[in-house]
């Protein structure tokens, strides 16, 4: 390479110096992005490729991995515990998404106005978003505790339950306390996302519709909904994929209980890989989860985009 440049330099100095300057600029651009590229390659692309490779092996923590072809995937097909975890994750995703987007939209419509008080309300609704899932889950583990927590004592004092009931001991109340926690913690996030759509609606539209005698419901259906479709699509994708990956809250508050009924997909992968140390099988489970998630995102984007363009 350098020999060619040397010859060219001797023959046509002007052209080659311009070319080498361009090459130098190319090189500079690559240098600037090199650290980011290196991190993504080493800590993302390489592990992603390795996931596929590992899923085709029996891969213990210590000792040599052994090639077993598609045996992990065959085993996975009959793994009732995994499918049950995936089923529970979908069940949770359904209710968490309804709760989060419903509450988020209600908060956004309520707090979209201007003024100092409304800004304060928005800040209050948003504060739980910034505290982190581990903190929120630990907080909820205490609030829902039967001996020292708030909820059982409060329900008893209000006469809702006779005596103090352990709400984390049976599936339904345990599931709903976690779901309520997630709605409390994340609704403010979806409020902000949806509000970015509401604010793109010019005030004239609603004003004009109001003058023309459109009811509040009609204005919502025909002006608000179509204009927030894009941020709504984004909120939906974020919410569904976030819920499908739920781990912290079920691990910290319920430890997968009662009777392992609240083990989510990520929780099951965590158990397989880092408690039982069946790394190859864990990788195969990860691949299935990954494919499901990418497919879900693509389907949701396609559904919502298609409608918008068809209008």
């Amino acid at each position, binding site marked *: 390479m350098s020999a060619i440049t040397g010859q060219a330099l001797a023959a046509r100095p002007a052209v080659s110096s311009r070319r080498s300057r361009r090459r130098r600029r190319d090189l500079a651009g690559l240098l*600037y992005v090199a650290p980011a590229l290196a991190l*993504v390659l080493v800590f993302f692309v390489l592990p992603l490729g390795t996931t596929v490779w590992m899923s085709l092996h029996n891969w213990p923590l210590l000792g040599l991995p052994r090639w077993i072809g598609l045996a992990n995937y065959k085993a996975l097909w009959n793994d009732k515990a995994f499918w049950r975890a995936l089923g529970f994750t979908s069940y949770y995703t359904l209710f968490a998404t309804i709760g989060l987007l419903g509450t988020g939209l209600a908060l956004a419509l309520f707090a*979209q106005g201007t003024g100092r008080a409304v800004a304060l309300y928005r*800040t209050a609704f948003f504060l739980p978003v910034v505290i982190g899932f581990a903190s929120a889950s630990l907080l909820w583990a205490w609030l829902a505790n039967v001996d*020292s927590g708030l909820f059982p004592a409060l329900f008893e004092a209000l006469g809702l339950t006779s005596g103090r009931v352990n709400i984390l001991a049976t599936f339904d109340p345990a599931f709903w306390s976690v779901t309520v926690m997630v709605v409390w913690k994340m609704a403010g996030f979806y409020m902000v996302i949806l509000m970015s759509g509401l604010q793109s609606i010019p005030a004239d539209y609603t004003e004009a519709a109001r003058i023309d005698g459109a009811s509040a419901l009609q204005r919502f259906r025909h002006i608000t909904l179509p204009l927030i479709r894009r941020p709504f699509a984004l909120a939906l994708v974020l919410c569904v994929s976030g819920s499908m990956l739920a781990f912290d809250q079920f691990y910290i508050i319920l430890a997968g209980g009662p009777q392992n009924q609240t083990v989510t997909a990520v929780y099951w992968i965590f158990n397989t890989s880092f408690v039982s140390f069946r790394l190859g099988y864990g990788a195969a489970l990860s691949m299935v989860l990954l494919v499901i998630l990418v497919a879900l995102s693509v389907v949701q984007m396609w559904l919502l985009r298609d409608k918008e363009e068809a209008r």
Partner: protein
Amino acid sequence: MSLALDTPAAASAGATPPRPRRRLRPADRLHRALFHLAGILVAVLFLAPIAFLVLAAFRPAAEAVNPPLPPWPKAGPSLDSFARLDGFGEGIWHYAGNSLIVALATAALTILVSVLAGYGFSRYRFPLKSLVFVMILATIMVPFQSILTPLFLVLAKLGLQNTLVGLVLIYVTLQLPFSVFMMRNAFDAIPKEIEEAARIDGVRGLKLLLRVLTPLALPGIVSVGLFAFLNAWNEFLAALVFLTDERNYTLPVMMMVVRQGRFGSIDWGALQAGVTLMMVPCLLLFLSLQRFYIRGLTAGAVK
């Protein structure tokens, strides 16, 4: 410190002239009172769990075992719970230090890497540029939870398993799609003329980036650093998986030790104190920098 959430509406409302104030009819006034009543009720509902926790953390040991009705210490505030928290492992400040190191290092490295990359993508042309850009952004499509197992092996190969350095590198990588995108847009928004003027004055290369362009991109840099800090401070699953030696635990992982209890009983007072320690830095950072937080959130969302 302003508590106003800086949303586009608030900004545009400032730009348009205020509507002339009509005198309110009684029905409107009732409507408004009901609106604020609802607003205050819901706001209190959202703030209550945080307030209960912080208040309860200051109860003395005798009260800490009781349900928080009321949550505040009846016999005067005490730091008992915080003191007992120090009896876990190496003492709570050790783990708070670990968390702080990880969060600060993640923020610093994320800023460094994404400023360089954002500048490179904004101002230079090089082969495969758009492919590399798309590849960095596309990592957001793949949840990191699904590559935990091989990441564990990659860290082991690099001799970084069970180290804070390894954890920081992973956190930085997770921040990159958002951060590089933010910084590329931030540099795109700076007019080229400024750069040309600086070049004519003889400022070039890295010096140009640091002295001239970085101050202009500062709002974006603050957003990127803020998100990196908060996400690293709060992250749980990767820390749980990759840190195996108790000495290296970050706060969330250490708090799991408190939550699991000793000799079959859980010290809820210590748990309240620990969670207070985890929450308060996030709340303070958000309240003082919320303009940058919301801007980062909506910039990521709208585009």
